[in-house]
C-alpha cells in the first residue's frame, strides 16, 4: 500500500466511525443504533487485545536486561518473569477465581500496591508541614482553607466547635466546587476541540513508526 493511503485510510475510519456515533445520539435514524452498538462491541474486543501489549513490552525490555546481564538489574528482571509467568500459568490454567490465583493476587499484588499508595500518608504529612507556610497571599489562602478542611474532618472538632464542619462543607461545595466546575467546562471544550482535530486527521500521535 502506498504511504499516502496508509495515513489516509485510518483517518477515514476514525471519521466514519465517529459520524456513526454522533448520528446515533443526535438523530432518529433507522439501523444507525445497531451499527453504533456493533462499533462499541468491536471496541471492547480490540481493547481486550490491547491489554496484552503491556506484557509484550515488558518481555522485550526485561528480556534485554537478562540477555545483557545488566548489573544490579538482570536478576530482578528474571524474578519479574518468574512472577509474571506464574500468574499467567495459574490464571489461564485455573481461571482467576481459583483459590490459588486469589492467593497469589491477595498476597503479592495487593500488599505492594496498597502499601505503595500508603507511603503517601507519610509524604502528605511532611509536605503539609513544608508547604503550608504564610509566605505569600496565595500560600495563605491555601493554608487557611486546607486547615479548615482538616479540622472539619476530625470528628470531635466537628461536633464540639460549632460551625467548623459546616464551614468545611461550604468550602467544598461552594468555592471549590465552582473552581472545579470552571476547570470542567474548560476540559469539556478541550475534549471537543481535540476531538475535532482527531477527526480532521490533525492528531496522529498514535501513528508512530510510519
Amino acid at each position, binding site marked *: 500500500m502506498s504511504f499516502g493511503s496508509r495515513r489516509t485510510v485510518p483517518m477515514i475510519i476514525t471519521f466514519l466511525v465517529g459520524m456513526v456515533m454522533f448520528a446515533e445520539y443526535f438523530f432518529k435514524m433507522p439501523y444507525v443504533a445497531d451499527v453504533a*452498538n456493533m462499533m462499541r462491541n468491536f471496541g471492547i474486543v480490540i481493547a481486550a487485545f490491547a*491489554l496484552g501489549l503491556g506484557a509484550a513490552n515488558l518481555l522485550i525490555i526485561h528480556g534485554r536486561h537478562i540477555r545483557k546481564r545488566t548489573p544490579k538489574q538482570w536478576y530482578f528482571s528474571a524474578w519479574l518473569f518468574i512472577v509474571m509467568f506464574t500468574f499467567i500459568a495459574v490464571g489461564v490454567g485455573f481461571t482467576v477465581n481459583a483459590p490459588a490465583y486469589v492467593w497469589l493476587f491477595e498476597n503479592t499484588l495487593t500488599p505492594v500496591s496498597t502499601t505503595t499508595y*500508603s507511603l503517601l500518608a507519610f509524604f502528605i504529612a511532611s509536605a503539609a508541614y513544608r508547604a503550608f507556610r504564610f509566605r505569600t497571599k496565595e500560600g495563605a489562602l491555601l493554608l487557611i482553607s486546607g486547615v479548615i478542611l482538616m479540622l472539619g474532618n476530625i470528628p*470531635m472538632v466537628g461536633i464540639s466547635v460549632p460551625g467548623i464542619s459546616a464551614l468545611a462543607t461550604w468550602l467544598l461545595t461552594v468555592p471549590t466546587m465552582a473552581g472545579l466546575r470552571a476547570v470542567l467546562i474548560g476540559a469539556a471544550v478541550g475534549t471537543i476541540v481535540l476531538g475535532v482535530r482527531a477527526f480532521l486527521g490533525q492528531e496522529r500521535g498514535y501513528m508512530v513508526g510510519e
Partner: protein
Amino acid sequence: MSGKEQSFVDRLQRIDPRVIYGLLIVVLVAPLLRPLGFPIEITPVVQKFHATIETLKPGDVVFYAFEFGAGDYPEAEGAGIAVKRHLFAKGVRIVFATTNDQAVLVLQKSLQSAGIPSDRKYGVDWVFLGYIPGAETAIAALAADMHTAAKKDHYGTPVEQLPLMKEVRSVKDIELLIVEGGGTETPTQFVRQWYAPYKARYLQICISVVGPTLQPFVGAGQIIAMVVGASGGAQYELLIRRPGIAVAGMDAQAFGHVLVILFIVIGNVAYLASKRMRK
C-alpha cells in the same frame, strides 16, 4: 537575639521528614490498639445517599459498577461494604460489573466481607458480569445493551441464561446506578454515558481525593449523592447500625489529622519567628 535561639527556630523550620514519619506511625498505631470511640457526626450528603437507597423496593434492579483496583481500594472499603449490606438488606437485585481489570478480584473480597445473605441466589438475586475492557466505550455499551457488551458473566455463564438478566437488558431496566471507585475519570464517563443520555439515577462511593473533583456533578444534580472516604464510610456504618472497619479507623484518622495540623502550626510559628528575628 542569640545565635542559639536562631538555630533552634531554623531547626524547627527544617525538621527531618523521618521524624515526622516516625511520629505519624506512633499516633496512628496507638489508637488502633486502644480505641477511644470518639463520636461521629452524620452529614446530610451521606444521609441523602442512605435515603435514596431506602426508596428502593424489594426486587428493584441496581446496577453496581465496582471500579476499585487493589491499590486504591482501602480507604473506602468500609463505605463499600456498608452500602452492599444495605442493598442486600433491602432485598433489591444487583447487577455487578467493572471496567477495571483488577476489580474482579477486589470485588470478590468486598462481597466476602459484606457477607451475601444465604437466601440471595446467584443468577436470580445478583449477578457479576465481570470485567468489560474499553473504558468509556465499555460504559456506553453497557448502557445500550448489557447482553452484547458482556456476553458471558464473570464465571463463564452466557448472560442470556441468567434468570435476572432475562429481565435486564439495558439502562432502561435499571432503577439505580451505583459506582464504587474509579478515580475522577470513570465517574465522569458514567455521567457522560449514563446520565447525559438516559438521566440514570446515580450514586457514587469514592475516596476523599476524588470527592471534590466530582462535586460539580453533585452540584448540578447529575450525581444524587456521594459517600466519600473513610469518614463517609464510618457514617454509613452507623446509619445501618453495623459499625465496622471504617468506624474502627476513625480514632486513628482524628489523631493523624491533629498531628498534621500540629506540624503546620510548628512550621508557621518557626517561619514567622525567624522572619521577625531577621528584621
